[in-house]
């Protein structure tokens, strides 16, 4: 590139060239880029007050409504304090819905040309998605933390703090897995308005045909079979056990298997779609 010798001197000093960097440097850049993208995505959360309010008020509203509207009736069939039944379930529901942010966020970035900008930079290819899913997981964690605090006020208690926090972690990990499904959907849908709907419509059957709000006992057989074996119920059940002080190794193993399975399937799908997606 002799023709550039005059003008490329400052560029060389300015931007480290990947060709001259070692494996460790590349590995570090992967993390650094992911962190930068994550930080950028979290800025939306911090700077848009209505997002923050929505993310806080909605789960509290759900919690209060479910507890006081259904609580009395449902307590009969759960055979105990409904808040302790509901809380873990609603934690799972909230973190899953928070993960649908990924769909909308990615489709917005696509339609606004941000993805093109990122892709034209010599940054880590994985960072745009990894930073996005990480940021939305942090948001989800924030949401359920608020929710647990609100729950505490109206009577929810961890039976055991150790297992309770383990349950919380499991819920966050499940939410993280779901952000990869959401990412795949966002990159497939592309259009931001369609993504608004596509992002969470599929979550309704998963969250309501489950053991999140009510025991599955009273459901018709066909629905019960689905409801008892789908991942949301399984993970919600395990989180519930952990939060109420029970350690069930089988449940934990199955939940982890679902989480890992979802990530293993959807992470490559999302990455592949990202690589080939065109902005318009």
């Amino acid at each position: 590139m002799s023709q550039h010798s005059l003008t490329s001197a400052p560029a060389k000093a300015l931007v480290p060239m990947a060709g001259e960097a070692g494996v460790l440097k590349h590995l570090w850049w992967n993390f650094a880029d992911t962190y930068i993208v994550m930080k950028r995505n979290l800025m939306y959360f911090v700077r848009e007050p209505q997002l923050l309010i929505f993310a806080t008020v909605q789960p509290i509203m759900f919690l209060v409504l479910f507890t006081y509207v259904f609580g009395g009736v449902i307590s009969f069939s759960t055979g105990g304090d409904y808040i302790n039944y509901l809380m873990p379930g609603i934690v799972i529901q909230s973190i899953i819905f928070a993960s649908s942010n990924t769909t909308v966020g990615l489709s917005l970035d696509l339609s606004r040309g941000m993805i093109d900008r990122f892709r034209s930079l010599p940054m880590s290819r994985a960072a745009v998605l990894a930073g996005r899913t990480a940021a939305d997981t942090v948001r989800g964690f924030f949401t359920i933390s608020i929710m647990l605090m609100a729950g505490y006020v109206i009577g929810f208690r961890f039976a055991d703090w150790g297992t309770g926090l383990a349950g919380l972690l499991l819920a966050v990990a499940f939410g993280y897995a779901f952000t990869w499904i959401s990412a795949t959907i966002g990159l497939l849908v592309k259009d931001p308005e369609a993504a608004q709907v596509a992002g969470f419509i599929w979550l309704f059957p998963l969250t309501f045909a489950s053991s999140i709000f009510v025991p599955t006992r009273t459901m018709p057989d066909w629905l019960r079979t689905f409801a008892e074996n789908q991942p949301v119920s399984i993970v919600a059940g395990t989180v519930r056990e952990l939060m109420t002080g029970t350690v069930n190794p089988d449940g934990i193993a199955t939940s982890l298997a679902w989480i890992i399975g979802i990530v293993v399937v959807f992470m490559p799908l999302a990455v592949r779609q990202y690589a080939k997606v065109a902005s318009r």
Partner: protein
Amino acid sequence: MPQNESIIADNVVKHFGDIKALDGVSLAAETGKVLGLLGPNGAGKTTLVRILTTLLKPDSGRVVVGGLDVLRQKQRVREIIGLAGQYAAVDEILTGRENLVMVGRLYHMPRHIAKQRAAELLEQFALTDAADRSVKTYSGGMRRRLDLAASMVARPNILFLDEPTTGLDARARIAMWETIRELVSDGTTLLLTTQYLEEADELADLIVVIDHGRVIAEGTADQLKANMAADFIDITVANPLQVAQASELLRPLSSEAPQTDDQRGHVVLSVESGVQSVAEVVRLLDGEDIHIAELNLRRPTLNDVFLSITGEAIIEEEAKPKRRGFGRRRSA
């Protein structure tokens, strides 16, 4: 490989399903020069830019940027190019400064260098006063400038600007031309796409005209114009109902039928020598009591060039911003 060409596309083909977006496009931009890629909407300009900037893979063809094979050395190409796409791809929620620092960091600059570079660029693009405001508050022109600044963060030698002034008003467009001229004055190679003929005329050293995914003409603005009839006479008749009559009357003066616009009362006549024909035009129209509201003698514009090559005019209307209008950021 010719070393004096920074951007080379050689017989590039790209299909989207059944649609042939690029049908064997070849072009080359000389190092340090501005290549204007001119064509109407849907001609394939953006597709070619996306291929040259590693965003899209061509079905076939060879693409070389800065001496690097774009298909094989994507990351290295990304280190030496700057791209400002059709949409001002800047983050609304961040401030102007934060946008530029983020881009610098993604080029793996150390933080203090990224900050310093951001400050330089803000100064250069007259954004210092707005630097710490969120981009949401920026005007269209400011966003474009910031977008351009973002593409300059790594001081690229090769720059791609895809319709840099689409959606800007006339004043902002002219300001943007000034900025672009300054950018390339230091020897940066620029490939610029535009649907504005005037813009290609103003900025480009070499113009490549594409339509329906094919190169249909190539040359300097003067060369393209030289292939045309010598002069044009634009006539506006006072009574638009007389357009057909006027056109008929003037037909013998030209080798081609005049172009007409009934609604606006326009008749455009191409002639060998404008000065000699003007008197004749006035005499003929006057003889039939057709009043002339306006008469202009002019050299051919690129619009005429395009019309003569493709048979279709490029519509010079204010291009609408193509961004979809969704105000909501997020719900549910």
